[in-house]
């Protein structure tokens, strides 16, 4: 099993969800996060007080998929989240040791 963790532009979340749904992936967890990589932030001014805002709103998408489907999911995710501009985000892939369904104690890929 692989855990796929993607940090994407908030406005691309709907596109990503739709694309993943189209290939049969409908389980995911999302979090609203803030961060930045190479993307520069922007300037905000409040009554003359200037702030450089470099931690920008992002959405973190996490899902665990069977090994056999990982490449397909990553490809779908990357293409649907891409705008081609700086700030599109990153995808990280991890090995998952175990998955357990709390309801009935199913284990492994069967629990996904």
């Amino acid at each position, binding site marked *: 099993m692989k855990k796929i963790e993607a940090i994407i532009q908030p406005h691309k979340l709907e596109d990503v969800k739709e694309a993943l749904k189209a290939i049969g992936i409908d389980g995911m967890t999302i979090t609203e996060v803030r961060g930045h990589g190479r993307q520069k932030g922007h300037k*905000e*001014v*409040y*009554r*003359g*007080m200037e*702030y450089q805002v470099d931690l920008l709103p992002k959405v973190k998408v996490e899902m665990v998929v069977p090994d056999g489907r990982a490449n397909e999911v990553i490809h779908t995710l990357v293409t649907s989240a891409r705008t081609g501009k700086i700030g599109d985000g990153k995808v990280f892939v991890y090995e998952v040791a175990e998955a357990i369904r709390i309801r009935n104690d199913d284990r492994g890929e069967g629990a996904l």
Partner: protein
Amino acid sequence: MPYRFWVALLAPALALAQAAPPSTETRLANLETAVKSAQSAGDNAWMLVSAALVLMMTGPGLALFYGGLVRRKNVLSTMMHSFALMAVVSVVWAIAGYSLAFGEGNAFIGDLRYLFLNGVGGAPNADYAATIPQQTFMIYQLMFAIITPALISGAYAERMKFSAMLLFTVLWLLIVYLPLAHMIWGKGGLLNAFSGGKIPCFDFAGGTVVHISSGVSALVCALYLGKRRGYMTEPMKPHSLVISVIGACLLWVGWFGFNAGSALAASALATSAFVATHFATAAAALAWMAAEWMKNGKASMLGGISGAVAGLVAITPASGFVTPFPAMLIGLAAGVLCFLMVTAVKSKFGYDDTLDAFGVHGAGGTLGALLTGIFATNAVNDGLKDSAGKVMPLGMIDGNSGQILNQAIGVAISWALAIVGTLIILKICDVVFGVRASAEQELEGLDVSMHGEEGYNLES
């Protein structure tokens, strides 16, 4: 039908036919009474609505405006400053405040004739407003006494102890507000142009009494308390401009009660003040947005509402004395001046006037009070008459250029009283409670440390 039934039915008609028609004198007297009571009903209706509008400026208006501008951890404590004063000032006002401001007294302070609202009832007090119950006048003036110290809270927000803030307000009312209100508006007050004051000063709705007094006291508070921890090094962005916009718009609407209500009647003068207030505010909002557009390349929402408040402040003393276009000029000047105060002057001197109570109310109030001396005209307000009953010229445009000096003296007295009074009061509060929250309390946020609650419990 029985005989008695017909008698009962016809009796009133028979009685009417037999009564003599009322004399012309009686009918005239009845007519006069009816006209008077109709005018009183109209005026009283408007003044009660105005009183409610002015209370709405403090809560929720100012509470939302200021509450949105602070950090999230201080939203409740900031709103509490406004809200608590709605309660505290009301009690002080009923006990002695109204009497000390509007009792006849001497040139500087009222007497105790209305202590505990003694004698303040349904009968009008012709010294102030002859067509409304004195109780209406009393409750209307109370709403001004509530918002004025609440405006100061903009300077000490995010770092003042709640206990010290309550004591500060009570003492500030007694030492600064009530004497100033008496001098400008009270019968026989030193600066009251309409009641034989030695230095006739025009302040229609509170440029000196409300805005200079609160704005200058705010600067003293900011300097005395010192900067917030992390000022200029940590981000201190407004946590919700959305609620600030709602608050500022409520202030704009409520201000019609403040300025137009200061006519103390549902009169043409009230309309004129309403109109002047609106146009000045519109011009000031535009001026501020234009200034920052030129300086920063963008016009901001916060700039728009700050400009509107600056315009409302500056037109306050002039509102019942000026025509619409001078009103717009006053607004325009206020928008630019207050923008420079909060963006350039504040950073140059480095004081931490948290929400710019001085930059907007102190500066805007001073500008408005001085410009009133230029633009006041008896074409709008014919209330000032000489001993022969002839309407007197008001400002420079009426040919009375000496009025600018009178206005300047009124401004100087207001500044002096605010500075000295506030310094003494802060010293007293510092000895009694300590005025400043501890470092831990300030870092934790005053909502939790002072009030034991949080504004946003989104997980619950």
